[in-house]
């Protein structure tokens, strides 16, 4: 593995290797404190995403490495019209690894051609965001002890939510996984997820509109934000944004060991009152994201610890 552009580049074995590494980092952080000494990570964020950028930077610092980069396009050469290929070729001269966020789909793939160093996709428009999926998967692994025989509820914007599509793809490779897809009609998963992924593999799924009705069956509930920027008009957004709000009340019917995940930031789709519930895992997910990014950086830089 030279780059990580799409989560499906990783086999389940490679994924397990990253998870094992992350678990070892969690158990023995001191062992990794100087693992990337003298190495530089470039965070090239052509659109702002403070959380993702900080997670990559924290990951590199905890490995004893350094960080360079920019956090928005107008402070970079892209604002002067430089191509992605030229920008990363330049950066590749300074950095040992690149984490790149870009508003256009496929930009990180373009970057891999000229960077000369490993490129990690830190989100490309509405397309892929593999390190978010790594965070999700480590969280599931730590909460559930594995990936098999789980009933997996995904709720909210399943149409535009890129994290949802990656997660369904990644989870569909494990035995005994069932999906409950909870969304308004307008925001259902794209058809190809059903016709190209779930149906050919005979994976059980249900498309439903009621979060409450689905709740008792779920082992994992993955909540997503209904994002304003994905809508073409304000009226549609206002009508749909409050449809699926998770409250302590709705959780009464849930399993005792449900794990509630959310890629964050949340707006109001999970009531703050849920935060103290032991089943709320979304802040653990943030921390898990850092550990998986550390594991990924080690793997791509081929650092042996």
């Amino acid at each position: 593995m030279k780059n990580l552009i799409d989560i499906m580049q990783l086999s389940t074995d490679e994924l397990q290797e990253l998870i094992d590494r992350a678990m070892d980092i969690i158990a023995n952080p001191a062992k990794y404190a100087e693992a990337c000494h003298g190495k530089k990570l470039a965070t090239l964020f052509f659109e702002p995403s403070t959380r993702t950028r900080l997670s990559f930077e924290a990951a590199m610092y905890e490995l004893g490495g350094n960080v360079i980069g920019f956090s928005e396009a107008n402070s970079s050469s892209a604002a002067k019209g430089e191509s992605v290929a030229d920008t990363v070729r330049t950066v590749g001269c300074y950095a040992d690894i690149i984490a790149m966020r870009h508003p256009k789909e496929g930009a990180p793939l373009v970057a891999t051609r000229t960077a000369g160093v490993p490129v990690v996709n830190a989100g490309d428009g509405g397309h892929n965001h593999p390190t978010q999926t790594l965070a999700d998967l480590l969280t599931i692994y730590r909460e559930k002890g594995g990936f098999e025989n789980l009933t997996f509820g995904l709720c909210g914007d399943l149409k535009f939510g890129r994290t949802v599509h990656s997660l369904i793809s990644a989870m569909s490779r494990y035995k005994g996984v069932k999906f409950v897809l909870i969304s308004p009609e307008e925001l259902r998963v794209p058809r190809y997820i059903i016709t190209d992924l779930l149906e050919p593999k005979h994976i059980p799924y249900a498309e439903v509109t009621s979060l409450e009705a689905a709740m008792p069956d779920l082992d994992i509930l993955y909540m997503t934000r209904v994002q304003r920027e994905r809508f073409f008009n304000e009226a549609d957004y206002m009508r749909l944004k409050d449809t699926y709000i998770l409250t302590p009340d709705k959780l009464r019917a849930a399993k005792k060991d449900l794990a509630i995940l959310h890629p964050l930031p949340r707006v109001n789709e999970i009531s703050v009152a849920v935060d103290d519930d032991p089943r709320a895992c979304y802040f653990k997910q943030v921390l898990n994201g850092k550990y998986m990014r550390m594991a990924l950086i080690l793997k791509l830089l081929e650092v042996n610890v």
Partner: protein
Amino acid sequence: MIIGQIKDGIVLDHITAGRGMDIYRILGLDKLDCTVAMIKNADSVKKGKKDIIKIGQVIDLDFTVLGYIDPGITVNIIQDGKLAKREHLSLPERVTDIIHCKNPRCITSTEQELRHEFRLVDREKKLYRCIYCESPAPKVVD
């Protein structure tokens, strides 16, 4: 109807009926000085009806483009009045700069230098996706 035999040239056979003119245009056959015959709705054992194009000269053909537009085509190269070579086309694994990605969020929409590349993801469904954004290719193939 009888169309004269070719001594040296190319016969594109088993063209999907109705698609002959598109292929004529895409291959730029209107620009050739040699004899070109377009036969529409010929009887076909395999398909019922087919189109045929006869070109009175051996020209360079892009089999990738042809295979993408109409994978059922048979290309017969005629030399000295005899069949010298026969190619059965198939859908190419990749097509470059034949079709353009229409997704406004795709990197190809802002970076003019990039080649538009599509990868065959499902041969049965004849489905191609953009290698950058994975949008399905605009339909040329039925």
